[in-house]
């Protein structure tokens, strides 16, 4: 194990302004010793992928509560693949119905965290899933 910090982009795609969860997660990941880049609101999939690549992120955490997850998340996965960045771990948090969560995982999302998930379980997941 090296001393390299896990680098995570916390991203808010789409039009919804619900940033309470994203900010809590960003802070909890930082407190857990990770390098966190928070994109801010209203990002397009292109902007998110660009940030992930520029920042050499190990993981992208997508926070979405607008109901547009089935449009926006697959697009982010696609763009990552196109840019040869499919090794970036993608996790999603928000109000995502179970069938949609299953489908997103099939498409390559590593985990979907719903309402009530704790920051410590998300920290643990990232620590376990990102090879450092």
């Amino acid at each position, binding site marked *: 194990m090296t001393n390299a910090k896990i680098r995570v982009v*916390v991203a808010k795609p*789409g*039009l*919804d*302004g*619900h*940033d*309470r969860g*994203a*900010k*809590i997660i*960003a*802070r*909890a990941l*930082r407190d857990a010793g990770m390098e*966190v880049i*928070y*994109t*801010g*609101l*209203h990002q*397009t999939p292109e902007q998110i992928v660009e940030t992930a690549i520029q920042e050499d992120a190990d993981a992208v955490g997508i926070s979405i509560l*607008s*109901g*547009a997850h*089935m*449009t*926006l998340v697959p697009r982010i996965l696609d763009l990552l693949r196109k840019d040869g960045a499919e090794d970036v771990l993608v996790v999603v948090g928000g*109000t995502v*119905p*179970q069938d949609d969560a299953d489908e997103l995982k099939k498409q390559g999302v590593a985990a979907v965290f*719903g*309402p*009530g998930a*704790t*920051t*410590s379980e998300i920290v643990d997941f990232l620590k376990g899933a990102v090879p450092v």
Partner: protein
Amino acid sequence: MAATGNRKVDAAGIDAWRELFEAKPERGGELFSTLSGVENEPLYSPETVAVDYDRDLGFPGVFPFTRGVYPSMYRGRLWTMRQFAGFGTAAETNERFRYLLEHGQTGLSTAFDMPTLMGLDSDHARSEGEVGREGVAIDSLEDMRTLFAGIPLGDVSTSMTINSPAAMLLAFYVCVGEEQGVPRDRLRGTIQTDILKEYIAQKEYIFPPEPSMRLVTDMVEFTAREMPLWHPISVSGYHIREAGSTAAQELAFTLADGFTYVEWAVERGLDVDEFAPRLSFFFNAHLDFFEEIAKYRAARRIWATLMRDKYGAKDPRSWLMRFHTQTAGVSLTAQQPEVNLVRTALEAMAAVLGGTQSLHTNSFDEALALPTEHAVRLALRTQQVIAHETGVVNTIDPLGGSYYVEHLTNELERQAYEYFERIEKLGGVVAAIKENFFQREIAEASFRYQSEVEAKQRIIVGVNKYVLEDEQPIEILKVDAKLEQEQIERVQALRARRDTPTVEAALARLQDDAAHEDRNLIGPIIDASRAHVTMGEMCDALRHIWGTWRETPVF
């Protein structure tokens, strides 16, 4: 200050009780402070609460209105049961509206989808996947006509939750009224228009703060002169609280926003009494029962006091803080969702004991999706049970004089004034927004709360205690993805059908007027609506002149 009880408490009695109290250790683990972190004593008595009855409480309908804005409160008239609804296309939402009216709802409340909130038409690239998902998609006058089909606008009061493009939606509504033969001065309702809380919490903004405030002030001026029954702003703490603020922050930031609108309108040259009676408020009802009741009581007292003494309002109606309440969406859990019925009922009870003028109760399935019809009916029934079965409506401000509630009312009031001072020092609300002051305060409070939950200092039933393994999924509402395509086709068909030169002329005039600060934009926006200019096109015209806003993200 005289103690509220008039009777002096025997000091020896208090000491004796304290000794007995301290003889038994308190429970460990959970916090005894309020949900917002206000410390609670185990007991309050006349010794610990200073209230001057006439000065601080008075009577309902009488300054400072701590006990309620109307002399008769629910003895005269119950609150308006107003369920917020909207999803899919205008036609779907029109059906839901009629369903709610048939089941005894007394006012309408419209939820718009994200693209509409952000001033984007349904066929805009950024709208993809979001059309009709979290509210109804309204692109033009045509959609608004469908939304209110068969609903006589002269007979209902309508609330519209829209902020950045509020002027456009109001214009559509005015036009639908005209078509139904209802003149604008007879239209009753509320449009949210609270742009300041968008920068602070809800984050559905388009333009930078100053031109946004100009548009809001245009609307305040227009409605003051032409729509006397309309509430042009619903100053909202709801979203501030949902974003993670404390009760005191909700109270303080909302009132500070309210005073800022007053200042802008006065600056415009309006007399404060010309518009202030039509300002209304919108608060959250969270789970900490007494703290919420105290919040509403403090809000009324602060508003009345400052409107009279600082802003010089002479019309007593300008002193009245009338408010709508919605139960806390953030308190709903995805785990064991039926339990949310209980949470919502308790929150609604606090709103009623706090003297709300109208109320939305959340549906139990809303941590999972938009509510089903069944869930919405149960939510409405919750209000009906409170109104008709519990007896809490029989006596006005029944908790007035409670040592604890009066203490909390004073405490929240104190914290609000403290915040007013800090905001003032930063140069006012708009300056404080630009410095991320509110955003930081809220982020701090929400992180503290989350940490308390994770440390199990706060228990959430079904989430961090009393957890069920193997929960059965409940049936949830799915918005048909087909609706998005239909809506896109509808707006594109409208563009192809309408008279292009008229549209272009209307947009050119809007842009020209926008570039001149001394012109009121509501007239040109109504004219553009009538010419079937879409909401997105009008917003684009203004974006071109004013630019857009992007906050510096902080966490």
